[in-house]
């Protein structure tokens, strides 16, 4: 009797301890991994073709360009008010280097998703760093009036036009595939859409009319094929994003090292103070990463960098 009870207790203990042991193992495995946000994951779903990858890289380029324009505007306003803007200029100078990296990224490369995830993450971090540094310099009221001052129209027309053209080209390919499912290809209509003579809504209306005339079975078949291709794209994106999470921290270190080296070699910024500050911030981030903080994210550098303040 006692033996059986003993065995049952031991078994129960083993069963209850094993999940804990497994959980510890998993925690150890994922220590280096980074979670990619859902928004980014969705954005990568179109990157399984070069047009889709090009669109995302162009959109990232546009987002960074807009922030650089806003950052420059902010700095010029602060300079008028006699603030020390060296820290902000250093962050902006790094954002400019990042912009060059985005422009140089190859949408046809097999690791395009990984590059996009990495560079977008850097862009978000530098933007946050700029915002936090600014917050430490100004009170809420001053920040609000600054927001008002820089609320200008940001129409970087050339870039927007290029993105729009690529999006129409991507949508054309998608619609071509759809016409293929339907078994009715209207190339002239597709060309009209791609050239901007027909809107997306008009295209959808035309397709709606064709679908209305179909049998129930055909409609179900098209729906299933659309769902299937969507699921395939999602799975592909999930795999790519999952791969992008591996060695995220070490890739980040490598990027900062390359950026730092490039900044040193090219003497990228005309103002030597800003250049020195930027290099110092990058070195601080590298040291933080090496010392095992791993967060590597906010990389605010040392306390001196944060301050700024009035001269």
């Amino acid at each position, binding site marked *: *009797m006692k033996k*059986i*009870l003993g065995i*049952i207790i031991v078994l129960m203990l083993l069963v209850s301890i094993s999940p804990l042991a497994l959980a510890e193992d998993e925690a150890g495995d994922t220590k280096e991994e980074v979670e990619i946000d859902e*928004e980014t994951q969705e*954005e990568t779903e*179109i990157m399984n073709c070069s047009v889709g990858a090009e*669109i*995302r890289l162009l*959109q*990232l380029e*546009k*987002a*960074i360009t807009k*922030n650089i324009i*806003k*950052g420059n505007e*902010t700095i010029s306003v602060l300079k008028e008010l006699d603030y020390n803007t060296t820290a902000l200029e250093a962050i902006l100078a790094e954002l400019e280097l990042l912009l060059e990296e985005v422009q140089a990224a190859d949408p046809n490369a097999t690791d395009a998703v990984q590059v996009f995830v990495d560079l*977008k993450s850097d*862009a*978000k971090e530098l*933007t*946050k760093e*700029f*915002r936090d540094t*600014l917050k430490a310099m100004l009170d809420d009221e001053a*920040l609000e009036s*600054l*927001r008002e001052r*820089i609320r200008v129209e940001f129409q970087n027309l050339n870039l927007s036009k290029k993105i*729009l053209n690529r*999006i*129409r080209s*991507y*949508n054309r390919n*998608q*619609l071509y595939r*759809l016409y293929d499912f339907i078994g009715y290809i209207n190339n002239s209509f597709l060309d009209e859409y791609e050239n901007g003579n027909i809107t*997306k809504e008009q295209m*959808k209306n035309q*397709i*709606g009319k064709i*679908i*209305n005339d179909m049998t*129930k079975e055909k*409609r*179900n078949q*098209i*729906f299933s094929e*659309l*769902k299937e*291709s*969507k699921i395939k794209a999602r799975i592909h994106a999930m795999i790519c994003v999952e791969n992008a999470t591996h060695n995220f921290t070490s890739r980040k270190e490598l990027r900062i090292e390359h950026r730092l080296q490039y900044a040193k070699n090219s003497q990228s910024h005309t103002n030597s103070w800003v250049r020195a500050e930027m290099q110092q911030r990058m070195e601080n981030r590298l040291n933080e990463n090496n010392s095992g903080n791993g967060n590597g994210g906010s990389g605010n550098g040392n306390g001196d960098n944060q301050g700024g303040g009035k001269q």
Partner: protein
Amino acid sequence: MNKKILGAIVGLIIIFSSVLVVSVLTNNVSDSDDKETQDYSTDDILSEIDESLLDEDGEIEIGEMV
């Protein structure tokens, strides 16, 4: 006494496995029911098409500077 304990353990195992089998079977039945009743309207298909197309004004968010 030993037999009683063993009997109780065997009984518990049988109850758990029956519950498991019943739940798996009910899930399968509801899945096959779903398959039989699937019918899609033009709007369903157009909404799927809409999801597969990109928004022409779409942008990537990296946060605000100010």
